[in-house]
């Protein structure tokens, strides 16, 4: 009987060990699921943790925090053993023989009646395979764990949390790397909108450097040292771009953008004229339209030709050349802005101006007579964020009564730009030529057409409408 009791004891040990193992696995799966859920639910607040702990370790931290509670609550008790054995009895219809035998073994009972129970239980349980009889059954937490893990990894991969929390963390102090990443993203957006290839490339490189710094949690001082190399690279690129495009160095940023818009309009005009009328009528048509494109006209005059003597192909190649030059100049200036931004970053913490000056160029810039000579003032620093009002108005040249005032700016949601005219009212006439107004509208239309706000199907209609404005006037 002692050998039977020993066999039974081993069988019970095997069964209970299997049940314990299942319990542990279940607890771990539950913990894992809840840790991932907690990490996902607290995603908006990860920005504040970013300096202390990498986002990869947030679920692990939650896991560690919750583990004592779950492990304590789910620890194996003697009642769990009884429950497991009662389950065996129910499954094998043993009428609590297994449970009674287990307790009798625990109590080392040797009465004849007890031995009878052990004998009958032993007969029924000899061939018991706990793993086959009581297979694993996973709870919903276990089933959710893997999809949640994938979701978490996906969010990390696409960097969802950081973009989200960057809006919530306006008041939190940002590291140099974070500021650089923010700037590089704005730079890329601007470069994409304006077709500036070099700037786009540089923007991407800067973002990579910044992300590396954030991931490695590099200190500001060390990161600044790393940035020195990037600053030199930008300077070299800007220099080479300037050497290639000497044309527009004296033009203002706005003039260059106007020129690009006019070039686009002129190309469309050439295409329409080519399709609608004969080549002979092109010269007259072209001259009429040129009057409505002031920046282009200026360039023609600078080149010493009004375009009437040029063939259509010559005209097209001339326009392409101008476009290339204008783009190159914008690229150069953007790179220069980036270089100055990096300088500002490097000076941070050394008593220099702080974050308030760190803005993307373009939006804060206004016409100035000597725009070609850039200095370290507000006008050539990165612009304000969209939707933010300027804290102070830029200083303006004295308004002369009787002279034409040309107001340029973008109309649209979120952007607030324009000129505030300050002048004493005096006698005289104030007028703006129709050509300039039309050119201004056309520029605005060009900008709007490049955005996604205008439906694709309507772009052509709108473009034709603005082109027809000049024609209608004639």
């Amino acid at each position, binding site marked *: 009987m002692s050998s039977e009791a020993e066999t039974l004891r081993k069988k019970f040990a095997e069964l209970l060990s299997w049940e314990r193992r299942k319990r542990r696995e279940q607890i771990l799966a539950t913990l894992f699921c809840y840790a991932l859920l907690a990490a996902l639910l607290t995603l908006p607040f990860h920005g504040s943790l970013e300096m202390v702990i990498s986002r990869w370790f947030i679920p692990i931290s939650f896991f560690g925090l919750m583990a004592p509670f779950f492990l304590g609550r789910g620890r194996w008790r003697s009642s769990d053993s009884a429950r497991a054995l009662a389950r065996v009895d129910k499954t094998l219809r043993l009428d609590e*023989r297994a449970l009674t035998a287990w307790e009798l073994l625990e109590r080392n009972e040797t009465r004849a009646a007890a031995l009878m129970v052990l004998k009958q239980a032993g007969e029924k349980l000899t061939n018991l395979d706990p793993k086959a009889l009581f297979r694993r059954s996973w709870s919903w937490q276990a089933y959710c764990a893997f999809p949640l893990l994938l979701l978490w990894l996906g969010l990390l991969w696409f960097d969802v949390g950081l973009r989200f929390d960057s809006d919530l963390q306006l008041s939190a102090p940002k590291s140099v790397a974070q500021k650089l990443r923010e700037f590089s993203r704005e730079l890329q957006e601007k470069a994409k909108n304006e077709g500036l290839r070099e700037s786009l490339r540089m923007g991407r490189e800067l973002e990579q450097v910044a992300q590396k710094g954030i991931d490695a949690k590099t200190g500001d001082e060390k990161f600044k040292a790393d940035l020195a190399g990037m600053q030199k690279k930008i300077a070299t690129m800007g220099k080479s771009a300037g050497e290639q495009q000497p044309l527009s160095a004296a033009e203002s940023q706005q003039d260059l953008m106007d020129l690009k818009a006019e070039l686009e309009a002129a190309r469309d005009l050439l295409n329409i004229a080519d399709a609608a009328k004969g080549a002979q009528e092109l010269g007259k048509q072209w001259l009429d339209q040129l009057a409505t494109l002031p920046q282009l006209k200026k360039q023609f005059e600078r080149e010493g030709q009004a375009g009437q003597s040029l063939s259509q192909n010559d005209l097209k190649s001339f326009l392409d050349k101008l476009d290339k030059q204008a783009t190159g100049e914008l690229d150069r200036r953007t790179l220069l802005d980036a270089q100055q931004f990096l300088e500002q970053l490097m000076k941070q913490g050394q008593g220099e101006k702080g974050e308030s000056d760190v803005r993307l160029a373009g939006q804060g810039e206004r016409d100035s007579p000597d725009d070609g000579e850039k200095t370290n003032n507000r006008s050539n620093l990165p612009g304000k964020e969209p939707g933010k009002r300027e804290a102070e108005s830029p200083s303006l040249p004295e308004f002369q009564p009787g002279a034409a005032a040309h107001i340029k700016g973008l109309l649209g949601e979120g952007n607030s730009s324009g000129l505030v005219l300050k002048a004493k009212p005096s006698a005289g006439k104030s007028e703006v030529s129709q050509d300039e107004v039309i050119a201004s509208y056309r520029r605005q239309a060009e900008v709007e057409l490049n955005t996604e706000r205008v439906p694709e199907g309507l772009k052509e209609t709108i473009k034709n409408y603005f082109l027809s404005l000049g024609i209608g006037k004639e």
Partner: protein
Amino acid sequence: MEAVAEIEARMQRARRSFDDLKAEMARMIVGHEDLIEQVFIALVCGGHCLLEGVPGLGKTLMVRSLGEILSLSFSRIQFTPDLMPADITGTNVLTDDPSGRKIFEFQRGPVFAHIVLADEINRATPKTQSALLEAMQEQSVTVGGKVHRLENPFMVLATQNPIEMEGTYPLPEAQVDRFFFKLLLRYPTRDELARIADFTTAGPPAALREVLDTADILQMRQWVRDVPLADTVKDYAVRLVLSTHPQREPGKEAAPLAQKFVLYGSSPRGLQSVILAAKARALLAGRPNVSFEDIRQMLLPSLRHRLILNLEADAEGIGAEKILSEVVERVAEVS
């Protein structure tokens, strides 16, 4: 090994005896199989039963048949309001001894039998009821300062008529508690009624065969107590009994019906009854141990007369059966 073989033989014998008893009873009594089992369980546990049912359901016949099959002496006492304690226990009468001297001799009452049928026990006065109940508890009667031992085994089967309550003396709760089981006799089904008609109107009644004797019953009483009971199963019975109590302490959970309608829950005697009956049930089923099902099956007959319900329960027609059913549903086998 020999001991185990002996236990195995004992179990087989108990089971066979019970099967024989059931077969023999079935020749005389139609239906009531569960009732016969419970009466036999009470007998092998040394308890007494309170039978409740309308007249004519075969209570007396069943008890008489049981006595015949078990070769036990049987007596019947019809309880009436003018029945005196001495009519039950017996009394000292003046008589002449062989030398002609006048002496008091104890004349034994009907209680001196193995099986006593106390018919309509609630019709007698409390004083007479007490005399019987004392005999049930002590297994002896004292007359004239002399203790007279009752038969062993001794079992009282008292009956109550639930419909005629006028002029009756309901048993006090403390005395009802002394009954091991309270059993309800249900009305026969259509088929059973047809069989009863055949049994009683065609031919003479069958002669019953003895299947057990006094010694067998006393031996089985010992075997019942040897049946092993797991602590987990015992704990289940304890929790069931505790759940019949309306919990007054916060944090302790009671069945909602018990909480609302029970004035006093089961006494510890109720727990003893449940466990002992469960052991007997296991033995008669040829099992070496008590199961959860044994406990559940024995809960109702053991506890239904031990719950003291409040007036609200009476008004709403809630009985002990309903409360106990809810208790069984709510209490988990393993806590």
